[in-house]
């Protein structure tokens, strides 16, 4: 079995240890005998829609995101096509915002997004940052997904809300906008979220879920065997919840 990953704008969208997510996916696939191929696609590169099982975008500084936004408008339709063919996608923070309908800055400038996720983002006046835990329904293990968030953009679902599926419900933290209790967005096999830490480090259940999403389209239903050694992740997960769930629950 082979997993082909496309890492989009690796040198521009790389804040907050985002590349750690790819390392987690790569190792967890390789430990199960799945070969992994990671291609780096950036400004001006062509994006072949049929070549990849999984796309990954991290977060970037405002400056870098502006540069990416222009290039991503050109790549957008190819990305849409790839997802329609069954590819999976994971976008964190800035990457998530860029794949929404639009982003409005504090000076009321509006940047058009790819429009993959039915959400839009408006810059707020304070950073929403801190440790966060969310409840995600689709996961095989009924444990929260935990991480850290740090964003000034507030993301809202587009009306009508019917098309919007959040990734999870907030246990503590801010999530999409700090108002409606939702975090992230799911569209087909695409996941957008504000969680980093990196996201997949302490969430092996989510990492494996994304691996199955990515492999499904080409290999049908994939059963991933449990990995020995995951105790460390679960210990970290447990220590995190023990420390922060009391401190931050509002």
């Amino acid at each position, binding site marked *: 079995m082979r997993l082909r990953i496309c890492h989009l704008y*690796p*040198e521009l969208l*790389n*804040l*907050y*240890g985002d*590349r*750690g997510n790819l*390392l*987690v996916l790569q*190792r967890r696939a390789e430990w199960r005998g799945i070969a992994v191929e990671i291609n780096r696609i950036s*400004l001006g590169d062509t994006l072949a829609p049929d070549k990849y099982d999984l796309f990954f975008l991290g977060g970037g*500084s*405002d*400056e*870098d995101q502006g*540069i990416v936004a222009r290039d991503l408008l050109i790549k957008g339709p190819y990305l849409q096509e790839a997802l329609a063919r069954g590819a999976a996608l994971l976008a964190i923070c800035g990457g998530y915002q860029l794949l929404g309908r639009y982003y409005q800055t504090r000076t009321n400038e509006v940047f058009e997004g790819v429009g993959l996720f039915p959400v839009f983002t408006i810059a707020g006046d304070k*950073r929403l*940052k*801190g*440790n966060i835990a969310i409840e995600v329904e689709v996961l095989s293990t009924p444990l929260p997904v935990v991480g*850290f968030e*740090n964003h000034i953009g507030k993301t809202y679902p587009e009306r009508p809300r019917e098309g919007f599926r959040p990734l999870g419900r907030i246990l503590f933290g801010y999530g999409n906008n700090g108002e409606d209790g939702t975090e992230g967005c799911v569209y087909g096999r695409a996941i957008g979220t504000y969680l*980093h*830490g*990196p996201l997949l*480090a*302490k969430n092996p259940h989510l990492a494996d879920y994304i691996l199955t999403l990515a492999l499904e389209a080409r290999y049908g239903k994939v059963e991933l065997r449990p990995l020995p*050694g995951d105790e*460390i*992740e679960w*210990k*970290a997960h447990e*220590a*995190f919840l023990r*420390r922060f769930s009391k401190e931050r629950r509002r």
Partner: protein
Amino acid sequence: MKALKTLRQLDLMAFFRFKIALYLGCLAGLVCRLLGREGTSLPGWIALRLYPNLLRDLARSIDKVIIITGTNGKTTTANLLARILKERAGFEVVHNKEGANMPAGVAAALMASVFRACGASKRVAVLEVDEGSLGYILKQIPANLIVVTNILRDQLDRYHELEQTLNYIRQSLAFAPQAELLLNADDPLVASLGGSLSERFVYYFGLERTPYIRLDGGDVQEGHICPGCRGLLVFAYYHYSHLGHYTCPRCGWGRPFPHFRVKDLQKRERGYNFTFVYPGGEEEIFTSLPGLYNCYNILAALAAGWVSGVNPKEAAELVAAFKPGRGRAETFRLKGKRFTLLLVKNPTGLSEALRAVIETRPGVYLLAINDLAADGRDVSWLWDVDWEPLVGYPGKRIICSGLRAWDMAVCLRYQGIDLSLVKIVPQQAKSLKEALKEEADEILILCTYTNLSLYRRLLIRMGGQSEVKDLSPLPRTA
């Protein structure tokens, strides 16, 4: 008490309030020390609340102010520069040498100096200032020289992104239009600070090509966007992180040619040899400090010394004898073992520390990771560290400790480190006991800010002997 005399120019009421703030602050510091606490910033914190213009009025008694800011290397650069100015220029040096670099820490240092001032010699303040406090400090204190070391990825939950830090520093510099600048030419973000400020004197320092350059910047790249035209910069090579030799193919901007340079750099068993090139001369330098980042610190200190009138020939000896301050590679002897404390606070610092010590230091690595406010709440930076030195030398014993010991272990697992060699002992005191059980006698403790003072106290309590003579306290943190 020359300092107090100059302050009599203030009107009587203000002078009275100023004095009350000063004495109450100092009293609080004294009480702190009597209680056995380390109150480096507290006197300043109290006095600033009682008298908001404290820094402005304290600065009236100082003849020359040198400010050192940037992400990494502030403390070492400031410590060495203070030493050079004191011993080779005969200045009376006021210095926040414990790394207390927020307004309260700077105030405390200036306050303490008021009572020490004897009046005979010229007084110079060498102040390391946190990037986030630079604007406030420059509004209050008229600086003569501002040194910017580098702008690297740091605690992002505090200072957000690099461009924002850069803009903040740029705006802050506007409060000190009279100050000369000494900038790192190899860091495009820092070098760009010099471009738009044509009214003032700007000096640059930088490293020439060394045998240790890298052609690839790796995954983590910052400062790769041209500050002039927003094109992508092209790097001929990197020293580390985004420090290197760069040009912009679109608008032609590039690394300014430095006035002060490190030439012919060679690694020695401990430390480095290099030639320091300055306007009108060259000087051979040896340092026992590990890591390329320390060569930058020495370069910046020698350059700032030159700008302040010190002949580098007279400073070379001081550099060779220079030992870093408390917690900056401080070593302790305990039960036949040698413990070295290294402060690591961001990916570049940790990557370079690993690169510097991995060949020479065998034995045990104690990674002590906390996530309190002063450490940075967000620990995702661990994943931006280049762990290759540790992965490439298998068989090292590793102990993870601190509030985020488990996060550290998870990160190591995915880097490809054999977890059977890793012990996870979150409690700091216990982690030291584990380290004592190891066979190796050279133990390196890489710790985040709040763990630094904690491990130092623990080592001393267990009977460890510091190899740094001066035993004044470390900064306390929130």
